């Protein structure tokens, strides 16, 4: 069975060239980069090269790249580390984030709220776009940090970071962007974007798990969140994960060199899927921005059915997708991103997220377009909501017989 992996915002498949680059550091070059001897020096050299490769991908200087274990850690370091460095006396200051940030940003903000900061959560429109005007209006005299993601991993909407960072900087406030979905996939230049802090992850551009990075503009203060060592210029203690960092570096180099060709290919595959799917499946709606979206993101809501059922049937055809439905999440909560776009909750249960990679072919897309509609039909034939719609032409409201109180456990 041909496997069609469409969950590339969760993780990408390692590039063979990246693996080959990593192997010596899993075998003979096992030294600690901080050691003085020759074996350690090999790791130190590799670390320097990777730092340069990652810096080149986003147009920064090498000494502005700080490696972390994952993007969640980088986001924690950015939000908590900057807040701690720039905090004021009572109250400690205000932080602005969008409501559709990754949980590592939202929960870092929540933690700061508990510690005496105030947090403003910005709304988005139905496409998931943050209005620069809203950012401007939200800024308070004591705002110390604004964090708005570059693009959303679920609905693919890209924010106008250049405009937003200008607004924020006019008030001399720090600006962070979570560029996990964009760096390595679309051109990302820290100077053009005008950011002080930027998160990126190698797992998004065919690098290994275990390495991500935070760009910290020279002169910006960030308090370490892991204490105890001189690594990463004292900002992130802990033995460097050299094999993963080497992999991320190589992956960054490849991503930069091959970005244009991958970008065009992804756009054409994405647009085929986006234009053809609604023709093959009635009552399906594109989520996220129709134009300003990631080249590899396709997200549809398929009405009258629920996401997990589709996911399981697609899985059997070797098509691996994900969903924002409550049933698919371990916490049984609907995606906070879809909720923020104010999508009808019943429709959101039928969301299917397909994220493409450079390995996807035109034949794969044809296969999806062929296999998906019968699955939808099968589930709709079982659906009381679809039966109701067919009989009455109306959407069923939550009404009689829907009085069961779910006791959803808190996360």
């Amino acid at each position, binding site marked *: 069975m041909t496997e069609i992996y469409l969950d590339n915002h969760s993780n990408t498949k390692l590039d063979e060239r990246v693996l080959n680059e990593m192997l010596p550091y899993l075998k003979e070059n096992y030294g600690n980069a901080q050691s003085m001897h020759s074996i350690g020096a090999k790791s130190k050299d590799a670390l320097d090269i990777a730092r340069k490769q990652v810096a080149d991908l986003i147009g920064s200087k090498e000494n502005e790249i700080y490696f972390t274990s994952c993007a969640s850690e980088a986001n924690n370091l950015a939000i908590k580390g900057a807040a701690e460095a720039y905090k004021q006396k009572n109250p400690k200051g205000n932080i602005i984030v969008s409501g559709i940030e990754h949980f590592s940003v939202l929960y870092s903000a929540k933690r700061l709220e508990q510690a005496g900061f105030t947090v403003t959560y910005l709304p988005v429109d139905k496409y998931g776009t943050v209005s620069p005007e809203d950012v401007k209006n939200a800024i308070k005299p004591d705002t110390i940090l604004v964090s708005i993601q570059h693009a959303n991993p679920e609905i693919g909407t890209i924010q106008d970071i250049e405009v937003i960072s200008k607004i924020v900087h006019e008030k001399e406030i720090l600006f962070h962007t979570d560029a996990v979905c964009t760096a390595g996939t679309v051109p990302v230049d820290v100077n053009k974007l005008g950011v002080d802090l930027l998160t990126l992850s190698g797992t998004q551009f065919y690098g290994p798990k275990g390495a991500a990075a935070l760009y910290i503009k020279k002169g910006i203060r960030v308090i370490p969140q892991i204490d105890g060592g001189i690594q990463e210029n004292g900002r992130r203690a802990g033995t460097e994960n050299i094999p993963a960092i080497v992999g991320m570096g190589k992956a960054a180099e490849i991503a930069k060199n091959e970005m244009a060709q991958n970008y065009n290919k992804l756009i054409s595959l994405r647009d085929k899927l986006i234009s053809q799917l609604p023709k093959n499946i009635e009552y399906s709606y594109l989520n996220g921005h129709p134009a300003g979206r990631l080249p590899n993101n396709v997200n549809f809501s398929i009405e009258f059915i629920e996401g997990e059922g589709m996911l399981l049937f697609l899985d059997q055809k070797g098509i691996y997708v994900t969903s924002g439905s409550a049933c698919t999440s371990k*916490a049984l909560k609907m995606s906070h991103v879809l909720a923020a776009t104010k999508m009808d909750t019943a429709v959101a249960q039928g969301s299917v997220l397909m994220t493409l990679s450079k390995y996807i072919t035109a034949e794969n897309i044809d296969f999806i377009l062929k296999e998906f509609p019968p699955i939808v039909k099968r589930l709709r034939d079982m659906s009381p909501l679809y039966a109701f719609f067919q009989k009455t032409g109306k959407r069923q409201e939550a009404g009689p017989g829907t009085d069961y109180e*779910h006791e959803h456990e808190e996360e």
Partner: protein
Amino acid sequence: MAFYSEKVMDHFQNPRNVGEIPNADGKGEIGNPVCGDMMTFYIKVKDNKLEDVKFKTFGCGAAIAVSSMVSEMAKGKTLDEAMLITNASVAQELGGLPPNKMHCSNLGADALHKAIEDYKKKQAAK
């Protein structure tokens, strides 16, 4: 290990007794599309026994498998026997459900009981 047991996957992929019964003797609906799971059960009663049970379900794999299993367990049983089917016994018959699916998706027995209550109410009104 896969997320669901083999038995759950079997009932999800080949659900038994999907459909509606026209002029059903009883109908029971439970859940809410907003929560992600909704089940409608239809029953046909003859000589105090469940001659036919059918369902339609909007929901995850577990919800569909649970509905299918309930319909199979209930068919041919007396009304009193069918009232003894519990959500827990359905989950057990399916070889277990993931912990986070025990709550919302495991409502099949409740929906069946509602259909039986609906039938009894209609009988009493006659």
